[in-house]
């Protein structure tokens, strides 16, 4: 493997790992605050799945290129400009409809991404993806169920979902950008063509929306930047809380 390819793989793994970590952190904010007990357990389970995923991916990223780093070092000792998660993942939790819409968009993408990665020429990544795709698909079916319940529920739940879908739409196109690193990985069969994922993603979301009476929003301004490590102001606040202990007491253990 060339240095350039190793660097691209590491960046890609950080993107996957950071997406998992930041989503896990946001989902865990629901613990003890969900609208009902079953949902509290569901969202905590989702958070746990994401943090487990982050652990494997960041650990792998830390061993691919340059100085060896553990998953914890990568999670707790990078600043926001060194994070590559999608902007959508870091947005504040918002209301329950906002979380469900976010979960729907992100888990539909992850379902398709990990399905494609099962065929990756990188054997470590393909082995991991075989497991991750099942979890992502389960997360998607959970979000789709709720999307239907809220969409066909009361006028208030319906309107809150519509607002959430519209607010979040401006953060969806970023998932499918092809950076130089994505192109290089595609050439080596390590990662899939994001443009192809986009078509399937729109179909997947469209099917859920059709059953619930929502429509795919018009494309307007789209936020971008995470491929370059440029984030919204929210990520810094999130890291501040998440990294507090390891920053204040480096290498603390218990």
């Amino acid at each position, binding site marked *: 493997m060339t240095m350039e390819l190793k660097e691209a793989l590491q960046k890609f793994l950080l993107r996957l790992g950071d997406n998992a970590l930041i989503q896990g952190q946001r989902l865990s904010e629901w613990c003890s605050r969900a609208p009902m007990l*079953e949902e509290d*357990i*569901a969202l905590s*389970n*989702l958070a*746990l*799945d*994401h*943090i*487990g*995923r982050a*652990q*494997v991916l960041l650990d792998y990223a830390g061993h691919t290129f340059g100085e060896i780093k553990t998953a914890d070092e990568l999670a707790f000792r990078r600043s926001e400009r060194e994070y590559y998660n999608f902007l959508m993942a870091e947005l504040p939790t918002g209301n329950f409809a906002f979380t469900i819409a976010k979960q729907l968009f992100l888990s539909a993408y992850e379902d398709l991404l990990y*399905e494609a990665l099962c065929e990756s020429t990188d*054997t*470590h990544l*393909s*082995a*991991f993806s*075989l*497991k*991750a*795709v*099942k*979890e992502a*698909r*389960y997360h998607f*079916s*959970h979000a789709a*169920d709720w999307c239907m319940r809220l969409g066909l529920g009361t006028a208030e739940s319906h309107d809150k979902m519509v607002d959430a879908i519209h607010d979040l739409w401006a953060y969806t196109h970023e998932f499918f950008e092809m950076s130089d690193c994505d192109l290089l990985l595609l050439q080596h069969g390590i990662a899939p063509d994001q443009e192809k994922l986009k078509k399937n993603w729109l179909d997947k979301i469209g099917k859920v929306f059709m059953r619930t009476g929502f429509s795919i929003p018009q494309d307007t301004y789209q936020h971008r930047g995470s491929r370059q490590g440029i984030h919204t102001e929210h990520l810094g606040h999130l890291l501040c809380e998440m990294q507090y202990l390891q920053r204040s007491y480096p290498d603390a253990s218990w």
Partner: protein
Amino acid sequence: MEHTAVLELLDQIPDPEIPVVSIREMGILRKVELKNNHCDVYITPTYTACPAMAMIASDIEALLKSHGFKSVAVHTQLSPAWSTDWMSEGARQKLRSFGIAPPAHQACNSWALEVMQVNCPNCGSNNTSVISKFGSTACKALMRCEECLEPFDYFKCH
């Protein structure tokens, strides 16, 4: 100690979340390699975020060391990915008598909790419904029997 004896010894270690089945019956224990007084043990996580893995690894180490091994190394093996298909029939039976419905069909990539048929571990009826897709642990969903009205855990296909 011989290879088969080590495997039998490790068969005593229960799954921390479902203590009626051993890690060997669950298919978590994959391989054991012996070199003099050293033992390499390979385990596969059931779920990416299975919080029981650290406990299983320390149980293995403690048990083998108490049986004379000088050094023990527990390795996590990701490939091939663990599947509920690896659970032995004995394990499925034990789950049922413990009150947990075992996975209803062969694991495949499409989750079909909506259309699958799960039998109540209490009365055997197939008239059951899902209460919550997420349960007390990552591997289970919560269901209810419409015949005997008992709620029960269902071990999801994975």
